[in-house]
């Protein structure tokens, strides 16, 4: 006979403020088979857990219901506590009284009644829980890093330095990401290339890292420790082994007017190109969309001039399938582009540019060799306006969040401008200055006090062209909402940081969650900021939300430690909440009739055929069998099975039907 213990947590006041915990405790104590019921202020604390452990021993409990927060939060905590007291951890269930009750309802009788209903449901369920043993699976000690920006580079190096193999996949022809486009970095004003390129080279030369550039992850199958990644290596149209990176082809290519993505379209590049001089690998690729040969069928100038005969026009995309044990997603971010700000003339006026374009103008390797010149006529702008929060914190435009990096880089831009154009005037329109970070606020103060950048608190309503000037109309809220009008030569918009264009598709391919802005979602906002909801997949950098370099690097190292911890285990322990096809003695063997509908719906190919044979090898019956290593416990086969021969541990038919009955019948 079941002996169930119910432990009701107040969660400080989080639950007890709206739910009458004493009443819940009294009501549940009267339930059939409840041997013990108690309440405590913090059940997850050490004394709280001891309370559970002692009760298990004292009352010889066969099942435990902890009525506290979401099982997504503390189920592992309490299952572990039960195991320590000698109770099988799978005999512990959690009733979610916080997220699903006390936090979402007002304080009244019906809230307490709902709490009692929830606890009663779980009490009835736990009576049918079975003692289960964990499953052990092997680990492939190779990590996949998707995205070769600073976050991906850091994660790959950290994992590789722990002695594990890493496969890095980068979409563009070179690693380096947005950081390689930056001129100088805040708050130290050291050159971005100088600190980044040595790390890029380190990745390329590291014996534990395999780098695939110009490649994309097309799919990910399997589960933690045992994924198989499908990688498409796009045809670069060159033989990388033969190419020496001399660059002769890039200078002779007749196509020279293709907008250069690396320069944010402010310069041109040929059809066979290396994205930037410090690219890693420093070998060109042919852009098939613009190459004369691929368009018209003749040209082949590069093939003629190549001294090592490395050009391969007939190269095709290659698909690789690689086993990996863990994945770090570090695909970075993008910025809002033109057509989002018609009132600012972004995209319409040549001298209204975005922050990344300004980075290229200020960069020594940029299109102007580091001189700040207007894109329209190449003149030095004497009056420059920076607009912070262009799109960010603007729910009307669909972006409610703060892009985090703009305040700092706008201060940096204004400073760089003042250092390069000594007699120029820099104005910054801002909503608030958010400069939290080590030496960050000091940096902004320096821009204002030492470099005399004119900070104006207020928003810009419109920008229009008049002759060769840009008229910026805004408001100064610190001067009593006074109208401000500035005749500017150039305007830089700190446009909102947004998720990369392919983020949603990638999330779907990897089966990870994403938020309403398409940024990848962490498993817990505070305590699991690096993990995703899918075990074995971790996040690093700005693909989670806009982040600066120090934050991206720290998170990347965090993700690397998670991967290393995973790889430090010989075998992985997995919850045995998987499906099982019933078995019985001959002549039935199983109620399974062998229709194998389950096989066609299983997303993991976990359903096998098992033959029962006579002594002379004649098949009597073929029934389904679940491969325990492959089954992930979704239960789709269970609800599909026509003969009800499959059941799912943790969510058996008995359990879920009992839950329905218990939820709706108070007399139980």
């Amino acid at each position: 006979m079941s002996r169930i213990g119910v432990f009701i947590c107040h969660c400080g006041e989080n639950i007890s403020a709206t739910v009458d915990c004493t009443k819940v405790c009294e009501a549940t104590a009267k339930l059939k088979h409840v041997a013990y019921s108690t309440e405590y202020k913090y059940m997850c604390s050490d004394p709280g857990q001891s309370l559970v452990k002692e009760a298990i021993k004292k009352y010889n409990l066969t099942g435990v219901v902890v009525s506290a927060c979401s099982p997504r939060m503390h189920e592992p905590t309490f299952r572990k506590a039960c195991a320590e007291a000698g109770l099988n951890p799978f005999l512990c269930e959690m009733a979610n009284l916080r997220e699903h009750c006390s936090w979402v309802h007002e304080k009244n009788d019906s809230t307490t009644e709902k709490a009692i209903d929830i606890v009663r449901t779980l009490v009835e369920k736990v009576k049918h829980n079975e003692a289960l043993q964990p499953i052990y699976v092997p680990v492939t000690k190779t990590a996949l890093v998707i995205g070769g920006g600073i976050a991906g580079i850091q994660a790959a190096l950290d994992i590789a330095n722990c002695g594990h193999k890493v496969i890095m996949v980068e979409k563009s022809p070179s690693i380096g990401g947005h950081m390689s486009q930056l001129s100088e970095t805040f708050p130290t004003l050291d050159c971005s290339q100088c600190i980044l390129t040595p790390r890029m080279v380190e990745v390329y030369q590291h014996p534990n890292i395999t780098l695939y550039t110009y490649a994309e992850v097309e799919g990910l199958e399997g589960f933690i420790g045992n994924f198989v990644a499908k990688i498409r290596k796009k045809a670069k149209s060159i033989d990388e082994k033969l190419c020496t990176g001399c660059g002769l082809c890039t200078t002779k290519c007749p196509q020279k007017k293709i907008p250069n993505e690396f320069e944010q379209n402010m310069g041109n590049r040929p059809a066979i190109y290396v994205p930037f001089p410090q690219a890693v690998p420093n070998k060109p690729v042919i852009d098939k969309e613009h190459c004369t040969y691929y368009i018209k069928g003749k040209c082949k100038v590069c093939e003629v001039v190549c001294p090592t005969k490395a050009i391969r026009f007939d190269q095709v995309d290659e698909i690789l399938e690689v086993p990996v044990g863990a994945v770090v997603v570090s695909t970075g971010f993008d910025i809002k582009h033109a057509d989002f700000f018609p009132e600012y003339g972004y995209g319409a006026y040549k001298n209204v540019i975005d922050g990344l374009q300004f980075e290229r103008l200020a960069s020594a390797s940029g299109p102007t060799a580091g001189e700040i010149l207007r894109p329209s006529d190449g003149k030095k702008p004497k009056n420059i306006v920076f607009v912070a929060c262009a799109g960010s914190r603007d729910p009307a435009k669909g972006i409610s969040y703060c892009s985090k990096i703009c305040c700092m880089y706008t201060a940096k831009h204004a400073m760089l401008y003042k250092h390069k154009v000594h007699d120029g005037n820099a104005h910054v329109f801002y909503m608030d200055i958010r400069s939290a970070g080590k030496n960050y606020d000091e940096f902004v103060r320096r821009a204002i006090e030492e470099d005399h950048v004119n900070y104006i608190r207020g928003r810009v309503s419109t920008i229009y062209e008049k002759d060769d000037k840009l008229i910026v109309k805004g408001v100064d809220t610190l001067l009593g909402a006074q109208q401000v009008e500035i005749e500017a030569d150039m305007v830089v918009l700190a446009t909102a940081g947004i998720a990369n264009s392919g983020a949603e598709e990638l999330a779907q391919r990897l089966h990870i969650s994403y938020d309403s802005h398409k940024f990848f979602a962490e498993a817990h906002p505070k305590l699991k900021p690096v993990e995703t909801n899918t075990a074995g997949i971790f996040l690093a950098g700005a693909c989670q939300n806009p982040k600066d370099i120090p934050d991206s690097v720290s998170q990347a190292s965090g993700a690397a430690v998670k991967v290393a911890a995973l790889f430090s285990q010989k075998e992985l322990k997995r919850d045995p909440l998987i499906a099982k096809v019933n078995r019985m003695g001959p002549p039935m063997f199983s109620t399974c009739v062998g229709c194998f509908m389950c096989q066609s719906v299983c997303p993991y190919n976990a359903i096998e055929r098992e033959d029962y044979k006579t002594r002379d090898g004649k098949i009597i019956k073929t029934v389904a069998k679940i491969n325990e290593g492959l089954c992930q416990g979704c239960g789709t086969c269970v609800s599909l099975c026509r003969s009800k021969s499959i059941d799912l541990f943790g969510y058996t038919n008995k359990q879920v039907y009992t839950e329905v009955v218990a939820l709706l019948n108070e007399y139980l």
Partner: protein
Amino acid sequence: MSDFEPKIVAFVCNWCTYAGADLTGTSRIKYASNVKIIRFPCTGRIDFMLLLKSFANGADGIIVSGCHPNDCHYTSGNFHAKRRWIMFKELMDFMGIDMNRITFSWVSAAEGAKWAEVVNSTVLRVKNLGPFVSYKQMINKSIEEEVSNE
């Protein structure tokens, strides 16, 4: 019918809607307390016979909710649920169950506010329909008939 408080059972998947409902809590968005959640690993696991079981036990309304198409943690469970739902819906409609008593929705882990909206709109709809006693009576009656025939 203003004092009628419907009993509504919600069958949700662990990865999207359960997490979304957790977010509703974390965001402290208030909603009607009539809805009680039963957690499943995936909408693919939700056996639609559970819906009939719920009505037979006195439920006035039902919510089934999982991950948006393409977002399923298990790749395709929500598609299987949706397909079976299309079939099952026709059956229930044929039986005379008012489809306004059932909500089938997608709520992701990021949509805390949407969960509150799904719950509140379902509660309101079911409140207007009144208690669903006819199904329970029908079940009890058929059992009685069976017994008397024997």
